[in-house]
Every structure is written in structure tokens, then in C-alpha cells.
């Protein structure tokens, strides 16, 4: 609204110009970001009959199966002191968040073609808002975690205060990789078929159903190249407490996360300009 002393903003459009104003624009369009996230959340829980119950049932059943298969049948339960269900759930929380985010975000741009070809806004808002939806799912699952801990009369250690930090790490890992994949998906439309594979594969190479302590010492550093290793180990450390952290691997893994995030942002920014022409 033009106020009395309103000075009209000047906008210059030329090749390469959006580059310079990008982060400023991202801030200016924050309202659109809120409302698109709100839309995605609303639609997600409206379309399913079970609604939010899905984000409880899915991790719960997975946890149950993992506890039985890995804990009882395969005998991977390492110490025997902790409640295995909690160990598994602590790993599954960030993992499911990551897997959901990847699934949702990868198709987000293509699903919002109508917006991209008709309206200008920093395109990063779209994959970001679908990661936010997964974050809400994560919140609901976290609530289930608290219930499980109460059931076992389990008191989390003092490290729990660091949990928000690792949630941010999980967010960064999901967001970085999602950005990369969603941009690729605009260019190569069959890329989405690769995602279920990545997710399935990732489940087995990430320490979800077992503790990363079962990985032999000499492979530990290599194993930590997986960004989810650092995140999941961090979650376990916060929730279970006395599981000791393998520091070199942990630091490496978190560095890989940050690196992925950078690469994702850079690749996304590079291809973003042509989304409207290519989509």
C-alpha cells in the first residue's frame, strides 16, 4: 500500500540480475513461504483418511519390526542394557524425516509447475516447504518417542539439550540433498524413480536398525562419509546418553552434511533460472 511518504521500489531486470538480489528476495517472500508450507501441511493431512495418524503408525510399526528382526532374530542388540526399542526409535526419527523429505521434495517442483510458470518467487521456497511438512511429521513422531520412553520409564540424559542442534543437522542434510535431487528431477523427469532406491539403500547403510558401534574400527571413517551417520549417532547420543561417539567419524559426517548442503544450494541456484523454460 502506498503510504504518504512511500517511495516506489525500483526494480531492474536484466540477465544475471536475480543472482544479486537472491537472498534479499528470499526474505521478502517469506510470507509466501509460510503460506505454501501451511498449504502443504494442510493438504497432506486433509487428503488421507487417517490424517496425522500416519506419522504415528508408520514409525511405530517399523520400529516394532526392526526391534524384532534386528534385536531378537539377528541378535544385533549391542549392550543389552538399553531398551532396544528406544535405540531403534532414536535412529528412526531422523531417518524417517530424511526419507520423507527426500520423497516429498523431489517431486515438489514438478508438482508446482503451474506456480513456477506463472509467478516469480525464489524457487527454493517450494522444496523448503515440503521439507517443512516432513518436519511436522517428525514432530508428531517425536511425540510418540516420548510416549515410548514413558512406557519404559526411561529418563533421557542431560545431552538431550543438544537434540535441537541435531534436528538442525538432520534438516540440513535433508534439505541439501533434496535441493540437488529436485533440480535434477526438473531436468531428467525419470530421476524420481531413483529416489525410492536411494531411500531403501540408505536405510541399510545407515545405522538405523543397529548402532554404528557394530561397524568394524577400520571401516568406521569410510562409513562416516554417509551424512546420516553423524545425524543418527548424534540423536542416539542425545537420547540414550552413554553410547560413546566416535569423534573423527562424527565430525567427518557432519562436514559431509554441510558440504552436501552447499552443493545442493549451488546447483539449485545454477539451474533455477531456467526452471520456467524447462519444466
Amino acid at each position: 500500500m502506498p503510504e504518504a511518504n512511500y517511495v516506489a521500489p525500483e526494480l531492474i531486470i536484466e540477465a544475471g540480475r536475480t543472482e544479486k538480489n537472491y537472498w534479499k528476495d528470499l526474505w521478502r517472500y517469506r510470507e509466501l513461504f509460510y503460506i505454501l508450507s501451511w498449504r502443504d501441511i494442510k493438504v497432506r493431512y486433509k487428503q488421507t483418511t487417517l490424517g496425522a495418524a500416519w506419522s504415528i503408525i508408520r514409525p511405530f510399526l517399523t520400529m516394532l519390526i526392526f526391534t524384532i528382526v534386528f534385536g531378537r532374530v539377528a541378535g544385533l542388540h549391542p549392550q543389552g542394557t538399553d531398551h532396544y526399542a528406544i535405540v531403534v526409535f532414536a535412529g528412526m526419527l531422523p531417518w524417517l524425516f530424511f526419507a520423507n523429505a527426500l520423497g516429498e521434495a523431489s517431486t515438489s517442483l514438478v508438482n508446482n509447475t503451474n506456480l513456477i510458470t506463472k509467478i516469480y518467487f525464489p524457487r527454493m521456497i517450494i522444496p523448503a516447504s515440503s521439507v517443512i511438512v516432513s518436519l511436522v511429521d517428525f514432530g508428531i513422531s517425536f511425540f510418540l518417542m516420548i510416549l515410548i520412553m514413558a512406557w519404559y520409564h526411561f529418563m533421557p540424559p542431560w545431552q538431550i539439550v543438544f537434540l535441537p542442534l541435531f534436528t538442525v543437522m538432520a534438516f540440513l542434510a535433508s534439505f541439501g540433498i533434496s535441493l540437488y535431487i529436485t533440480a535434477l528431477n526438473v531436468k531428467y523427469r525419470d530421476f524420481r524413480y531413483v529416489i525410492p532406491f536411494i531411500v531403501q539403500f540408505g536405510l541399510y547403510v545407515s545405522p538405523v536398525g543397529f548402532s554404528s558401534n557394530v561397524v568394524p574400527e577400520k571401516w568406521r571413517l569410510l562409513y562416516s562419509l554417509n551424512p546420516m551417520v553423524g545425524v543418527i549417532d548424534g540423536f542416539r547420543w542425545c537420547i540414550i546418553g552413554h553410547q560413546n561417539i566416535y569423534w573423527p567419524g562424527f565430525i567427518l559426517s557432519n562436514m559431509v552434511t554441510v558440504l552436501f548442503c552447499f552443493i545442493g544450494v549451488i546447483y539449485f541456484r545454477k539451474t533455477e533460472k531456467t526452471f520456467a523454460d524447462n519444466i
Partner: protein
Amino acid sequence: MASPVIKIEQLSKKFMISHEAPERYKSLRDVIANKGRQLFKPDREKKKSTEEEFYALRDVSFEVNAGDRVGIIGRNGAGKSTLLKVLSRITEPTHGRITIRGRVASLLEVGTGFHPELTGRENVFLNGAILGMARSEIRRKFDEIVAFAEVEKFLDTPVKRYSSGMYVRLAFAVAAHLEPEILVVDEVLAVGDAQFQKKCLGKMEDVSKNEGRTILFVSHNMGVIAQLCRSAVVMQKGQVSFAGTVSQAVERYIQQNNNDALEYVASESSAKKNIFIRNASVVNRKGESVENILVEENVYIKLRVGINQYNPAAKISITLQNMVGDFLSTFVEDVGDYYKDNRQTEFEVIIKLAAGIIAPNSYALRFAIFIPHGAVHDLVEMACPFRIVDSGSKMALFEGANYGSFILDHEIIN
């Protein structure tokens, strides 16, 4: 008086057209397959993948002053939509620059981002935010928007249950209440019922006149342009061919179309469609292409339809248009009636129109090939311009004046 609010300088937008892959996106599978093929037959593959430059806009320059209402006219593919997309920052220009002073809102489509699962109320907020309104602004205008759309009773119903009329009205209403300093509008008014269209045009005119807003408006409909805009820019093949007052521009546009050959010939890209108009012309009794036809003579339309992929449901409609693009009369034929043999790739029909009914004036034809309630395969508008010439009736005195489009048979009975 004022300095220009929009200043466009030497704007160009280049696209690369790849002749190898007509799809707009690639699949990873194809890329891998091609790379693999290249390994074995490196030479042949290189020759085949030619890319061609195509300028959708070339050296476009013009200025728009504060409070102006400017129409942009031009045929399909003249670069109007690309210009709007660049102006709205959806795609970047290749060269040149645009300087805009003021808040811009662009309306390239009504109901962008409407989600069928959300209620009317929720969609108003969503769509408003997408168009660039702040939440406080939407809240303030909410009642006004709802009243304008006349959907008060259905506010809490998901829009997927709305009738298409209600849906369009709600979408329009949000757009009509945008209050930017500069409004960029694509042909969005082409949908919705006539009464509501009028209401929207009225609202836009109000906004522009009373509040001094600048409007950039693209349309095929010369009537709407003439009504809403004061000046206009004519675009042709990505360039500005004329800029001036509306009446001059419309005249120029019609002239341009006339010079563009009387006969319509499908472009290379049109010829890739499933079913398309290959050739169309207005001819006389002898089959010669003509521009002027006497009022007592029959008008013949010669039409060649090309078929790449036959669909038995396809229909073809032929519409008589006046020079501002209004529809005067339409008739529809089944493509299947002329498609006898499934190896046929085209057929020709000649249609004879009754003599003495179309009044002396200038006309054009619109052809559409479509599936009823489904896809439109090909659409050609304002093609084959022709003139019906008076041969000495009572009305010959008024030759050149626009006194209507058809001759009503009448008699004095008292």
C-alpha cells in the same frame, strides 16, 4: 509529466531449439542411451543433434508512463507472453534490461495455485499470497472479495466442489482486488461468463482511472483492448512493430495480418500436432484465392486438414470473426466424416457459405480442431482475412462504415 514507470531497453530473449528432442525435458534414460550410442557411432550422432537459436524477443524497447493503460497486441508467437514472463521475472532475458518503478503484480492466469482440497476461504489467502498480497491486506479486503465473487455460502466448502463458474469468479475476485502500482495482465479475461467479465473489466478500469495505476494488458480481443487501453504496442515476430494510440495500433495490426498472406499455411511446429489445419484459404467459385468477394456471391472456404494421429472424436469448428475478433457465427463438422482410410495423412474440404447474408465488411476465420470437452489439437485465429464488397445495394452509400455483420432478410408488410 511523469518519468516512465516501465522502461524496456533492447530486450532480447533467446531460446535454443533442439531438433533432435522435441520434448521440453529429457529423461535420464535417454541421456544414458544417447551417450551409449555415441560411443559406438560417434560421427552420425554429432550431425543429428543440431540446435537452433530462436529469438522470442529481439531488441524490444518501449516505455510506459505512470497511469497508462497499455495494450500489447500481436499474433500467436509474436512474443507477447514471453515479454510478460520476462516482465514478471518468471524467466530471465538474454540481453537488455527493464527498469520498473513500483510494486508489480502479474496476473498471467486466474487462480494460480488454487488447491482443490482447500476451502474457498483458504484459497483466497493462498492465492492472495501468491499474487503478492500481505496477509493483513487480504484480511482487510476479505469481505469485499467474497462479496465480489458472490460465493458467501460456500466459503467453507473445498473448491473442488465448486461449479466452474464459482471457481473462476472467486479466482477473479482475488485478482481484481490486487492493489499494486503496476498490473501486468495476460489474456485472463477470456474465461468466465460475459457478465462477470464485464464486472472485472469495470473494476480494472476503475482502479486505473481513479487511482492512477498502470496496467499492461495482453489480449487477442481487440474489442477489450480498445475499451480498456489508451495506447498499444503491436508485436510481430518478437519485435515491436508499432507503438501508439489504440486505434492506430488496431488498424496497424489488422493491416499486418492482411499483408501476412491471405492463405494460412501451418507452421513447422503446428504440423507436428495430431490433427491440424495444414492450409486454409477463402476462394471464389473457380477455386482461386481471393480477398474481395461480392455480397451476392458465395464465399468458399478451402481447407486442408493434416492428420498425424487420428482420433474419431475430433471435430472441427469454423467461426466467422469480425476484425476485432468477435465471434459472429460458428459451425462444427466431424473430422471422421472425411477420414475414410486410415493411411490417409490429409484431406481437403471445400465449404460453401450462402450468398447475400454476410454484410459488406471485413472478416476473418477461426479454425479449431478439438475433442468435445477435451483437448484442443489446433487453433488458428484471425486467419484468411477477406472482405465482402457491396455491389450496389441501398447500403452502398455507407460503404466502409461498420453497419453490422449480416443482412437480415426483411419486408415491409403494411
